[in-house]
């Protein structure tokens, strides 16, 4: 005889979804081809190689969803294949029409109710992850960074640290025991963009007049790649993302260095004169000089970055000269104009920029 017990729906749901997620490790084979330890060569932007909590929760959910959809796929494919093979026309059965069956209420009820139950389970699993990521509390020690999307580069502002940089985001590692997550406020200066570094988190759009936010808490240091995932114009393809996850000491050192003004020599160089007497200063800032433009990336510590043109090219003196001389060579359609400088003048400007460590 059964005993009457008080049933708490919330508890049932919680235990059901916990049970469901417990199956997850067993279906690793489904994604075994893609799931990989970090630094494996398959792809630096593999969504199945998470190193941060939001990406990890999505990864766990995806295991469960793949398990359920994989099971449905297997059952239906077996039934379909059986029907196609078994009920094909043969020499023996063509002499008369098969028995006409018009339907079966029991069967139709079965394949209505069972899918409804599956949908409920999948919905609950998804709803749990949505809440855990979107409603996560913001701890007081979280780092705040404002990300501003531009055609076709990224501006990063650290309001509490007085740091402004471009295209290469530096954030500290977060120890799972004592999390120090980074919260990103996402803004756009022009069209829609989307911030997507697959190993850290899912994507979130940057929409003008519509501030968004997201967070990451990477557990491993290293360089994580991504790129703009919302079509934003001609050079959408070369609006690349580079996120450097630093150890706490490295990050503090980086912040200290970035918050200094530019370290300039006493005698103005030829390149500096050209830079400050052309339209360069209308778009670029070099802290400590008259250059205070904000349309283009801040160049105060340009040489601390490994790439130029939003990751489109490595930051070498040769590339800098070519970039200044004709930006269209690296990024056809980019918003930086060719200033009509000669190769020698471009080289002088590049030489000046190369002093901005």
């Amino acid at each position, binding site marked *: 005889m059964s005993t009457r017990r008080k049933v708490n729906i919330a508890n049932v749901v919680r235990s059901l979804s916990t049970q469901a997620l417990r199956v997850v490790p067993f279906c690793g084979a489904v994604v075994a081809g*893609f799931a990989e330890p970090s630094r494996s060569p398959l*792809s*630096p*932007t593999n*969504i*199945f190689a998470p190193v941060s909590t939001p990406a990890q929760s*999505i990864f766990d*959910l995806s295991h469960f969803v*793949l398990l359920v*959809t994989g099971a449905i*796929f297997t059952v*239906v*494919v077996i039934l*379909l294949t059986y029907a*196609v093979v078994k*009920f*094909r*026309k043969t020499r023996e059965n063509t002499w008369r*029409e*098969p028995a*006409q*069956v*018009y*339907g*079966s209420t029991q*069967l*139709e009820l079965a*394949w*209505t109710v069972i*899918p409804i139950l599956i*949908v409920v389970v999948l*919905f609950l*699993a*998804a*709803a749990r*992850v*949505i*809440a855990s990521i*979107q409603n996560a509390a913001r701890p007081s020690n979280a780092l705040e960074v404002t990300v501003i999307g531009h055609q076709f580069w990224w501006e990063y502002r650290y309001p509490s640290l007085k740091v402004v940089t471009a295209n290469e985001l530096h954030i500290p590692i977060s120890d799972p025991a004592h999390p120090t997550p980074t919260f990103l406020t996402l803004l756009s200066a022009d*069209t829609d963009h989307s911030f*997507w570094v*697959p190993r850290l988190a*899912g*994507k*979130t*759009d940057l*929409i*003008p007049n*519509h501030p968004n936010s997201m967070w990451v808490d990477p557990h491993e240091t290293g360089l994580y*790649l991504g*790129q703009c*995932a*919302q079509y934003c*114009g*001609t050079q*959408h*393809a*070369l609006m690349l993302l580079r996120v450097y996850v630093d150890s706490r000491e490295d990050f503090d050192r980086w912040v200290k260095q970035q918050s200094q003004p530019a370290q300039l020599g006493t005698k103005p160089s030829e390149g500096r004169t050209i830079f400050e007497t052309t339209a360069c200063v209308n778009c670029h800032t070099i802290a400590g000089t008259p250059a205070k433009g904000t349309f283009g990336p801040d160049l105060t510590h340009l040489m601390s970055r490994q790439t130029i043109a939003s990751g489109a090219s490595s930051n070498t003196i040769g590339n800098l000269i070519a970039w200044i001389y004709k930006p269209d060579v690296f990024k*056809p*359609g980019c918003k930086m104009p060719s200033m009509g400088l000669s190769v020698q003048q471009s080289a002088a400007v590049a030489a000046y920029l190369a002093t901005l460590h």
Partner: protein
Amino acid sequence: MSTELIAWPSSETATPQPFVGQLHQWVTTVDHKRLGILYILYALLFLVVGGVEATIMRIQLIRPLNHFVSPQVFNRMFTMHGTTMIFFVVMPVMFGFANYLVPLMIGARDMAFPRLNALSFWMTAFGGLLLYFSFVGGDGLYGAGNAPDVGWFAYAPLTSKTFSRGHSTDFWILSLLVSGFGSIGTAINIIATVLCMRCKGMSLAKLPLLAWLNATMAGLVILAVSPLTAAQIMLLVDRYLGGQFFDTQAGGSAVLWMHFFWVFGHPEVYVLVVPAFAFASEIIPVFSRKAIFGYPIMVAATLAIGFISMSVWAHHMFTVGMSAAGNTFFVLSTMAIAVPTGIKIFNWLATMWGGQIHFKTPMLFCIAFLFQFLIAGLTGVMQAAAPFDWQLTASYFVVAHFHYVIVGAILFTLFGAFYYWFPKMSGRMYDERLGKLHFWLFLIGFHLTFDFMHIPGILGMPRRIYTYEPGRGWDIWNLIVTIGVFFQAAAILVFIWNLLWSYFRGELAGNDPWDAWTLEWSIPSPPPAYNFADIPEVRSRRPLWDLKHPEDPDWHYE
């Protein structure tokens, strides 16, 4: 039902017309069959154009840092490919089949409004020409570029005057406005025809599934295309009359455009796929030699899909920063649509179960459709789980997913429909060997392209990029995807050759080459202008079955 209720008039003795006279007849026609064929030929022309655009993109992406086309050209190609395939291929071809088949299947002599029908076709036709005229007239300003390059969903504020100079975006807006009115006209016509033109005895419960599904599609067109048309007008106001609906620099909302577009865009998917279900629901029973399994629940599932599809649009917007509650709601509504869709797959399966499956070309395409639509549905469920979608959306995974729907499900059943009704439309049989060659080539090409396209998406490759860096692990998959395109192109050439050759040289088909059961097979192929000499009277969903099996008619059981 007795024989004399269906007339079998002898073939027409038409006097041959000179070419100009024939052309004049086609241009001024209000005959639903001719308009249907015009729609279909028009869509086939644009299928080739859209296919060429896709091929250009795939050649550009065959290897990293390729220089086949410039970024500007690539961006125009994906905008034109998407716009063309949705608005000027799949919608017109579905309207064409609906136009041709619905009156024949319900025992009518024409659509309810023949002149509106002609007007709608020509609106759609000129809409497409207007879009392509942008290649010539889109410049407007020196260096502003020609064809539109804002993507087929044209997110604000990329479409504002600031970011889209010249007239390319105007051509995009106007062509969709014009063809949108055409679509609404045809939709009204289909609904009126199904409601008012049915022959005696054909209650809604005896309506062929194809007519039911096309009426549902037409209802969705009215509900979905209207907001799109409104949004296009608002965008024109923004661009030329100082409006600020979507102008973010003046306080407008980019998200508002997304809502307008996807309130159209998601029902639109069902506008395209419901007629594909309609083809499968006619072809699978005939080649399994069994009545459709569970007719009432098939109709109910269709209507359920229609209703639910109106409430799922924001699953295209999981990454735009909706609240957790908003995202959760759209997860539920989106997953709910899997239930009626699953019912349909199981009912088609049950229709084949216990039948005698004839592997003619139309049936091969429908069987492939079942497998492929299953996969498309399951990858859809994956993306319905919003957090998973935060990774998958706007990547090549989603591109693979919707091409699995549009090519793997819709285009496959469409090819099935072409082969199935070609004898009725042309009066001649297609070549079965060429048909099978087309099927296998296209099947190989489809799977090479769209199976492998999921993988770069999982590896982080966003859509709409004209080039990519080496070292991301995307190279080999993109190469395979591009190779598949050439198989598909070869298959399309075989298909077109088969249609042309069979039109002139094919065997005569007779009235009823498939031993089928719906009314269109009771009249000559091609049907005379008046369709039915005497309007038939039906007593069941399969009038010709009753005719062929007077000892065991359907109306005993329905």
